């Protein structure tokens, strides 16, 4: 399938073994660099706070203090915030996926006058930084009573993922033959049906990719959630870390436990869906 895998990087057999060793050593160093910080935080999340201030370079949790997690769970309001995150993220991901799918379909497969203009407009969404809406949205969203509501987060979460998703879908939809819809159309099917049962199954890989990537983006979003929400019971998961800084500013172990808990959901999701993120990157890199 690809050319590089079989190309020997080190031809001369003398240096071959050493070369291979050096190569792996290099990769392992980078791998450590990428995951060590996480392990460090986890390590001290199951020890007493005082251990962090100890003289050792790294202290191993010989007697794990799991109690830190109990406190992080309760006082970090992990469950409450997790549910809130789920409400906001699941609805914004579903809507964003459907809407961007429709946009991509209309801009790649249908023929209309303003098509290029619309595509350009959608592309603009990739460039406008979300932060430029942080200030005015207070006034504008407040007109509709959307500040301090989940809907007030869901709408920008959709808006700011639409462009990238549309682009991703467009890449996939361009490659499908037009005869697909034509024969369904002649069989008497209408748009909703054509889209749902003819096009969508063909674009299934792209749909999964969009779902996963949008999920990660919105799940990890912080600044809008932090700015727009003021009622504690509405907040989303990343906030629990901030909450801990004040409440447990002296208890680093509980803070670390909280960080670990917040890091877990995307990590779990990633390990189940990493294949789709990879293929999303392909689409993004080649067509982006």
């Amino acid at each position, binding site marked *: 399938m690809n050319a590089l895998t079989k190309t020997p990087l080190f031809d001369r057999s003398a240096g071959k073994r050493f070369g291979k060793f050096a190569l792996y050593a290099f990769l392992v160093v980078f791998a450590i660099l990428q995951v060590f910080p996480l392990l460090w935080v986890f390590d001290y999340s199951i020890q007493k*706070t*005082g251990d962090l*201030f100890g003289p050792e370079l790294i202290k191993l949790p010989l007697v794990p203090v799991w109690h830190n997690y109990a406190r992080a769970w309760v006082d970090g309001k992990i469950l409450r915030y997790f549910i809130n995150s*789920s*409400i906001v993220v*699941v*609805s914004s991901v579903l809507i964003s996926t459907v809407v961007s799918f429709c946009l991509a379909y209309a801009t790649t497969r249908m023929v209309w006058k303003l098509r290029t203009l619309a595509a350009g407009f959608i592309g603009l969404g990739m460039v406008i930084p979300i932060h430029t809406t942080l200030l005015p949205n*207070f*006034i504008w969203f*407040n007109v509709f009573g959307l*500040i*301090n509501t*989940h809907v007030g987060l869901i709408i920008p979460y959709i808006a700011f993922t639409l462009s990238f998703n549309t682009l991703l879908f467009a890449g996939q939809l361009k490659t499908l033959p037009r005869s697909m819809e034509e024969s369904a159309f002649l069989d008497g099917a209408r748009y909703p049906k054509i889209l749902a049962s003819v096009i969508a199954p063909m674009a299934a890989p792209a749909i999964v990719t969009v779902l996963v990537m949008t999920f990660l983006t919105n799940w990890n979003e912080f600044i809008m959630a932090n*700015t727009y929400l*003021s*009622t*504690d019971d509405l907040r989303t998961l990343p906030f629990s870390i*901030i*909450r801990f*800084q*004040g*409440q*447990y*500013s*002296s*208890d680093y172990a509980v803070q670390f436990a909280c960080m670990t808990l917040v890091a877990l959901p995307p990590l779990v999701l990633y390990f189940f869906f990493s294949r789709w993120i990879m293929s999303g990157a392909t689409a993004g890199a080649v067509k982006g």
Partner: protein
Amino acid sequence: MKRIAALLVATLCLATGIYAQAKVTLKMGDNLPDRTSTWGAVVEQINTEFKAANPGTEIVTESYPDQPYQQKIKIYATAKQLPDVFKYWSFTSLLKPLVDGKFVVPLNMADFKKYGYIPGALESNVYGGKLYGIPVSADMWVVYYNKKLFADAGVTKLPTTIDELKALAPAFTAKGIIPMVTDGKDAWPLSITFDQLAWRISGDQTLPQKALDRKIKFTDPVFVQAAKELQDLTTKAGLFQDDLMVSDYGASRNLFGQGKAAMYLMGSWELGLGSDANFSDEFRANVDAFKFPILKNGKGKTDDLFAWYGGNYVVSASSKSKDLGVKYLQFYAQRFPTLAWASQACFPAQKVEPRSSDTPVAKSLLKIAADAKATSGTACLDLSTPQFKDDNQNAIRELCSGLITPEDFCQKLDASAEKASKQK
């Protein structure tokens, strides 16, 4: 499906809420995220008592560390989401804009006179002849220290001059102890220290106000010298923690509480260090306070006390339960000094009786207050516009990171004061 479910749940909650009827919820905000010890615990106690005295009242409190909290309140003011009752500060830089925008309700001075406030405390919350908030703490700028760490390092005499203070640094550093910590990230403690130093140099606490009124300039030698002293203290003396300029309030307080630092430059509201259950018994038994040192050639005296009334409580003008909010303030005014002093959580703005059971740090603070021959009032960063405050803090950050010279610093401060005076 999930959305529909969520909607259903929401409707249900609303419906049951209506039937439960007459439950009034007071939304509150403060800068006391720790609700289990010291000041936060006192507020929780007051809330519990208030709810018992007013059946059907619910209290929901939102708390953040100091600076994030100030930021939040400004955001809420923009979004018209201010809590019903919230902790704020009496300062021109903070309360006055809310008063001007009619965001807080005026209070009846007579209702609060009877609660034993220290003279001048209520007055610090008066704008345009009306009272807008009740003061909560009497704030003094002091140095906390850990007696055990002092003994361990062989320090027997408390520093009375800045030179003596600086000279202590090596003794602690040799033991792996940070000599002194404070909150540098938020800059205001260093800004207060700047004013304090200017007073220690000149012996005249009115100079910053005069400079703001443009009667003198921030580029005058007194301020340049104060800036130089501050820069020396923070960048050259090896006195403060390495990461001073990124240590926030919690992080720096924590270094002191964990016994990693020998001294903590902070206000008297940290009286609760002596009773904070988050720290070890050993630490609590050993924490004490001394007066901010003087300068050898300065005109300021040891008993010139940098003190003011900062923290207050206000009631939002857009609250649906204003009357209940004001009632809460009265309840607070009545209960706070007793509870706060009993648990030694805070130094209240009301008169308290010294007891033999007071913690050592409480006794020291009372003595510092009693010794005072002159007091300063609010530091200049809070005497002008919010923008001046921001400029002041940014300039202090640059000064104490060694990025600008004391002269540049004073120039920046003066330019900002000039701008602020034109806006008024």
